[in-house]
């Protein structure tokens, strides 16, 4: 006789309503008595219901992994396994998805088949760091599950004090605002750090994220230590005929209220002939006007990326946004992409050598100062790195003349803003 479904009066209340219910999904798995995971999911539901009753969590960590790797499996052992023995071990395997999280149904179905064989049948698409999360695997099944997923083309993602799985926006695959090949950059960089991902030995976690423009659809600036944003250095592309179509359709007031006045640097003006005047020197590449007039405005042709370092959430010293350390790096050919990789290598190396244990790179830069960090990674200062120059006088300036000479030399060489 199959194990009985647990009573779940509280969870049952999450089955009603118009939004798809995760509880109904858990129950479907638990009721699949022809599948190996049904008993596990029954106990999982039982334990989750207990959490809803007591408002307490019942999972603890431990050590579970696959051969050769020191990360990628999140161990979960139940603290109330005596009551719910079939979900006593409920580990997660983090898998790295294809960039942009595109799937052929054949790939997803194969993954489901493997996961039905070895795991719970429960998958989060996707975790906050960007992984496919196969949730609910016994210790015994972790290795064979990974082996089959690995043969299918998946690798384990990051965890702990290592390089983490990355996210890129949909980007070049389906967006006219994309300023570089996000997936190419992500694969090039992350796949270069697989040792640091699979055998974590950094001071603390390190996340890369890739957004094609300042809209930041991959949530890079606050969620990644190394945020790559697409941008352009020449003039934005304007199709004046298309601008006039917008004006004709929506009226001058609408254009003025929603485009001209919303420009944060007052770089736009609507001409008397209903064409758009752009002061490109003042333009911040913020994307607002391009978002509104998608048919008329596009990024310029000289495209590349800016790199911001140090984004993170509260722990330990408080929230941080990434800040600019590379205002512009042209990304057109393979050589350009290698320069981005080289920058990533220098920065991760500096992080390994200089961060304290459990210190994120943003906190490290905060501790040592941006200038020392830049010197450490071999990048010259640039006014695009600051909101404004210093406001206090507590600084020794006895190297002033030498620094001025350096600035002039760089300026003469036309290299002030690039590597």
């Amino acid at each position, binding site marked *: 006789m199959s194990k009985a479904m647990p009573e779940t009066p*509280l969870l049952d209340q*999450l089955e009603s*309503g118009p*939004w*798809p*219910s*995760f509880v109904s*999904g858990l129950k479907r798995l638990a009721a699949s008595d022809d599948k190996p995971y049904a008993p596990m999911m029954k106990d999982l539901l039982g334990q989750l219901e207990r959490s*809803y009753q*007591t*408002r*307490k*969590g019942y999972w603890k960590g431990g050590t579970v992994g696959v051969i050769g790797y020191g990360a990628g499996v*999140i161990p979960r052992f139940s603290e109330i396994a005596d009551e719910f023995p079939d979900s006593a071990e*409920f580990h997660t395997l983090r898998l790295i*998805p294809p*960039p*942009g999280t*595109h799937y052929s*149904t*054949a790939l997803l*179905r194969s993954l*489901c088949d493997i*996961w039905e064989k070895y795991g719970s*049948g*429960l*998958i989060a*698409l*996707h975790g906050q760091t*960007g992984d496919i999360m196969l949730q609910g695997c016994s210790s015994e099944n972790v290795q064979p599950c990974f082996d089959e997923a690995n043969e299918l083309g998946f*690798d384990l993602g990051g965890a702990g004090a290592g390089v983490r799985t*990355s996210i890129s*926006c949909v980007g070049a*695959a*389906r*967006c*006219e605002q994309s300023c570089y*090949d996000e*997936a190419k950059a*992500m*694969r090039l960089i992350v796949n270069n750090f*697989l040792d640091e*991902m699979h055998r974590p030995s950094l001071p603390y976690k390190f996340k890369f994220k890739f957004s094609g423009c300042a*809209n*930041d659809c991959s*949530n890079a*600036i*606050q*969620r990644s230590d190394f945020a790559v944003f697409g941008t352009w250095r020449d003039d934005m592309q304007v199709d004046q005929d298309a601008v006039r179509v917008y004006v004709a359709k929506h009226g001058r007031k609408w254009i003025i209220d*929603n485009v001209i006045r919303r420009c*944060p640097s007052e770089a736009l003006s609507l001409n008397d002939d209903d064409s758009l005047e752009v002061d490109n020197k003042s333009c*911040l590449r*913020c994307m*607002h006007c391009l978002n509104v007039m*998608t048919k008329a405005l*596009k990024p310029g042709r000289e495209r590349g990326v800016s790199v911001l370092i140090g984004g993170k959430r*509260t*722990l330990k010293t*408080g929230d941080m*946004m990434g800040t600019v350390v590379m205002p512009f790096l042209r990304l057109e050919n393979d050589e350009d992409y290698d320069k981005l990789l080289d920058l990533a290598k220098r920065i991760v190396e500096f992080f390994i050598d200089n961060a304290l244990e459990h210190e994120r790179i943003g906190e490290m830069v905060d501790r040592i100062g941006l200038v020392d960090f830049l010197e450490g990674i071999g990048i010259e200062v640039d006014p695009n790195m600051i909101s404004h120059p210093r406001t206090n006088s507590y600084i020794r300036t006895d190297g002033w003349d030498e620094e001025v000479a350096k600035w002039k030399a760089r300026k003469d060489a036309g290299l002030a803003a690039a590597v």
Partner: protein
Amino acid sequence: MVHQRRAIESGVPDHLPHLHPLLRRNYGKWKWHDRPRPGVLHHVAESGEEVWSVRAGTQRQLDVYTIRKLCDIADEHADGFLRFTTRSNAEFMVDSADKVAPLIASLNGAGFPVGGTGNSVTMISHTQGWLHCDIPATDASGVVKSLMDALHHEFTHEEMPNQVKITTSCCQINCGGQGDIAINVQHTKPPVINHDQVGKMCERPAVVSRCPTAAIRPAMVNGKPSLEVDEKKCVCCGACFPPCPPMKINDPDYSKLAIWVGGKHSSTRSKPTFHKLVAAGLPNNPPRWPEVTEIVMKILTAYKENARPWERMSEWVGRIGWPHFFELTELPFTKYHVDNWRTSRDSLNASAQLRF
């Protein structure tokens, strides 16, 4: 000895085989896009080819039956390809406008709401909670399900001033990240320490160094090596709990929920911003957390009725000011809203600009 298979360290897989053929053909060569209706994006390539993407909300915690259902829909309507957004929405690409309505009908028929584009409230990004995390004080999945039920109309319609991104987190580490509205756990009491376990389970120096306020120090308690907390210094953040589970921070009654507004990742118009505390002390009240939904709906209503087109939550509050925000939302303003952390002076009003 059992044969040990060596892992193929393949890292990030190639996406090209998994791109819809239309996207593959026009990779990097897109010209413009528009949104014919909520939940549908229409992209036109330089080649003249067009693609319609239909976005559907999911529960994120997906059982294989639901994933296969999504695959069935992709096979039937979208040439066997789909993708997911960072907020767990599924997207299906089709090559003609005629195919959009039948696809939407299939999705709706299977219980997936279509929406989440443009100036709508999109799916809430959320964390693992009681289902799988080892340190949660609440269950994000349940909070999210309850909220998205209430926000169904706002997901399926584009009626907000601009996009609204909501996040939830089950502890103060805040894996959910920054949001226009964030619903996060906020502990209100210092950890309760099991001194019998600390010496055995915790690397004490690491725990001491983890504390942001230096409130933890090594101590001998009942003859055993343990840790003690200076409760006057403790800010109840729970940072000590992950490295030292005997320092129980979670409490059914004292772990509350707090609501924050005005987080923004994009550099569009205004610079990115962190979310700010607006309400705390909400009970952790499963299975539907009605007190949370009530305040979120209050904030969203005020935003919807008062913000101008394109203003994100932070930009709207920036224009009208915090006094007016607290008036409109009828939320109390307390001493806990005033920051006292390292850079707190930057959050004070250092001007003679006042609002009445």
